[in-house]
């Protein structure tokens, strides 16, 4: 597990930071602020990063296979690419959510107008006065 590729202190700090990050993600899931589905990508990436911190040899070999002279450049490259993909995926999710909010708002507006018209045609009954409302 110990390696001459990176100093032990750095390895220990990396693993501690990744563990803290993983705990944070899990806490977000437990407190319902992050959905389990959306947490998966973060959990998997953190675990992969932890593996790399534990066995830096994997990274060095992978970097050489792709053609990087220095392994740290591969880390920077991969991190930037990963973050860019992540941001794009989030932007796509944002676009989809915007379309959904738009449709919901439009449906809300139409339903409200229908409701007002129905109430008016029944003689202006105020909400709760009459009609088949939800039963307690």
């Amino acid at each position, binding site marked *: 597990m110990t390696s001459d590729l990176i100093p032990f202190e750095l390895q220990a700090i990396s693993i501690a930071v990744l563990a803290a990050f993983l705990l944070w993600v899990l806490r977000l899931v437990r407190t319902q602020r992050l959905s389990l589905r959306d947490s998966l990508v973060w959990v998997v990436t953190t675990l992969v990063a932890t593996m790399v911190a534990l066995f830096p040899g994997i990274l060095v070999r992978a970097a050489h296979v792709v053609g990087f002279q220095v392994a740290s450049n591969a880390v920077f490259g991969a991190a930037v690419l990963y973050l860019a993909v992540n941001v794009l995926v989030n932007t796509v999710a944002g676009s989809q959510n915007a379309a959904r*909010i738009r449709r919901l708002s439009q449906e809300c507006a139409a339903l409200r107008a229908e409701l007002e018209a129905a109430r008016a045609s029944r003689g202006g009954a105020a909400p709760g006065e009459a009609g088949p409302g939800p039963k307690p």
Partner: protein
Amino acid sequence: MRVLAIVPAFNEERSLPAVVSGLRRSAPSVDVCLVDDGSTDGTADVARSLGVTVLSLPVNLGIGGAVQTGYRWARDHGYDVAVQVDGDGQHDATYLPALVDAVGAGRAALAIGSRFAGPRIAGAFRSTWPRRAGIRYLSWMLRLRCGARVTDPTSGFRAAGRQAIELFARSYPPDYPEPESIAVAARAGLTVTEVPVRMSERLHGESSISAWRSFYYLVKVSLALVLLPTRRPASEELP
């Protein structure tokens, strides 16, 4: 023939009475539907007091989302023609019957009210020269990308027949939608025509398109027009 006037409005309580009375005067048989785009003033209350149908959006969607709310209403309530009229008082309702005739007679599926199509009318508002240059560019882009010949592509004063109502209820660009919606219609094989109209300057408030936003407008619409032929048409199902 059932005609619906779609009036999108955001904080237009001051302009609204004049807009609605103009519509009633020029086209008494037309139903008026105000789309209140999440206004923070009394727009919806003023509209209700004027006796028009009010579609109150719970959040501000922007002009595209607001107008589409009206098209969905027109589709769901079986209107034959839907006419868009801005809530800020820029559009002269006396031209509404001409727009309705253009689609009602089956000449076209979509009729755009154009400030530049007819002979120049004295005192009419034709915008500032940089905007006119932008409009000319958009008009050229539209002809290039989808063959639609429209001299005033940014005009929001327009009439849509049944086919266009169906199309726009399904698919309408959310922001700066005017030129792109013409392209959407042309691409769907609908015929687009123009009717000369007169516009005036806004009665109150400021245009939602400030000078610095014009650049974004041109870039966004250009991208939309360039990509349009390769884009999958929007369906009723959301992603």
